[in-house]
């Protein structure tokens, strides 16, 4: 699929898998760094940052999920983290015993798998249709929905936090103390869903890493209930395959998609990256999603509606 990593094992039990599996099971969800219910983050009083906010970084799915949540979300966070590790185990293409691998080998029917797999496959099909096949969960005969799973799980994790905030204890709403916002962000390896505000009256500000200049930003986007996803070669090389040619996509250095849902934005970013130069016209046709791209020579382009998201540096 677009999003597959050439040369990496899929659904096999190579020597690397044991180490990775051990790493996953070795992570304690009851992280001692997490404050107990009602506690505030030790760093929540950092200057220039409102109190009553909590940051947490969780190693899962071979990457890191960063949470920026109101402190009132502390009680639900362990449940969210636990769910992400379940997704990792169920959808892993590294562990031969996962539902995804067993389904891919024909050992399980879809009905015998976790129902979430059918949900992911249905969403893959929608994006495949919308992207002229540039996004697909099938690479030849190999089944790998990884390109959708991360964005989908970020979105589900964000939804779990939102649901808990609605039913949570009173006093965490707008009447809370200080200028601390009640919104949250879930950033999975550089793709994120943001809700509400990090501080009252201020939108989220998300820097887009410059693909050609590490530590520099290519652009800053701002918004309240929105998602930001970026695909590129800066971190893991030319790992996105153009499914129509079977070759790694190299026409762009990175593609950033902004819109309401991270699941869709992430898949669109992967598809646009696989398209390369042709993505510009396709991106303009997307409904509700805006695109910003950097070419390998540093040139940039963006869709006509992207400016609505750009923020001053």
């Amino acid at each position: 699929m677009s999003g597959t990593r050439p040369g990496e094992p899929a659904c096999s039990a190579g020597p690397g898998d044991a180490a990775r599996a051990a790493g996953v099971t070795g992570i304690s969800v009851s992280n001692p760094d997490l404050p107990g219910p009602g506690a505030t983050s030790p760093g929540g009083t950092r200057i220039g940052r409102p109190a009553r906010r909590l940051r947490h970084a969780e190693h899962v799915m071979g990457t890191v999920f960063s949470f920026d949540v109101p402190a009132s979300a502390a009680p639900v966070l362990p449940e969210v983290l636990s769910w992400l590790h379940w997704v990792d185990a169920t959808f892993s293409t590294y562990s031969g015993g996962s539902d995804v691998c067993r389904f891919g080998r024909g050992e399980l029917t879809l009905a015998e798998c976790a129902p979430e797999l059918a949900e992911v496959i249905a969403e893959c099909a929608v994006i495949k249709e919308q992207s002229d096949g540039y996004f697909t969960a099938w690479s030849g005969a190999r089944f790998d929905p990884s390109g959708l799973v991360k964005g989908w799980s970020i979105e589900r994790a964000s939804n779990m936090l939102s649901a808990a905030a609605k039913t949570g204890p009173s006093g965490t709403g707008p009447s809370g103390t200080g200028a601390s916002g009640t919104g949250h962000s879930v950033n999975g390896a550089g793709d994120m869903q943001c809700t509400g505000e990090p501080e009252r009256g201020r939108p989220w500000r998300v820097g887009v890493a410059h693909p050609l200049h590490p530590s520099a930003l290519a652009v800053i986007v701002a918004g309240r209930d929105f998602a930001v996803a970026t695909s590129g070669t800066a971190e893991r090389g030319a790992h996105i395959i153009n499914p129509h040619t079977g070759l790694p996509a190299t026409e762009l250095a990175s593609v950033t998609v902004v819109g309401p849902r991270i699941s869709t934005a992430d898949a669109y970013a992967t598809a646009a990256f696989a398209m390369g130069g042709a993505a510009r016209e396709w991106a303009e046709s997307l409904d509700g999603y805006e695109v910003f791209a950097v070419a390998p020579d540093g040139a940039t382009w963006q869709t006509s509606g992207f400016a609505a998201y750009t923020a001053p540096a």
Partner: protein
Amino acid sequence: MRRVVLALGGTVAGLVMLLSFRSHLASTASAGVTAGSGGTGTSPGSSSAAGSGSSAASGAAAASAPVSAGSGTGTAVTGDAIATPYGPTQVQVTLNAGKIVKVTVLQHTDDGINSQMIDGHALPLLNSETLTAQSTKIDAVSGASYTSAGYIKSLQSALDKASA
């Protein structure tokens, strides 16, 4: 030459992370003085466009020795001297309200004329990028998917550390 720039970039990124950790401690310690003053430091980096389009211009402006950028006042913190294949490098940063407002290079790499040429171009560029990234208030970073190992070097990791 590009390899040298990248090597320096890695070193400086590491320093920035280290310093952002220290800046957390520093700003906590001086809470009584700087509380709530998130934007008081001048931030010359952010006046240029985010990204590297501005690096050539800032490089030319800052090429005259001593190599430093920024004009803010605050607490100066000196990083450890880092050994590189091209000689030691050491920077000092000035912090104000938890942000880097000035970067001064105390030790350049010293590996002959090549090194001087590279330093003359790369160090101002890195200054500019450090200031741009540090002085621009952002909540999160979107970028190409990193692995667990890649996260350690990421700006997102520095943000998580600085605020956790």
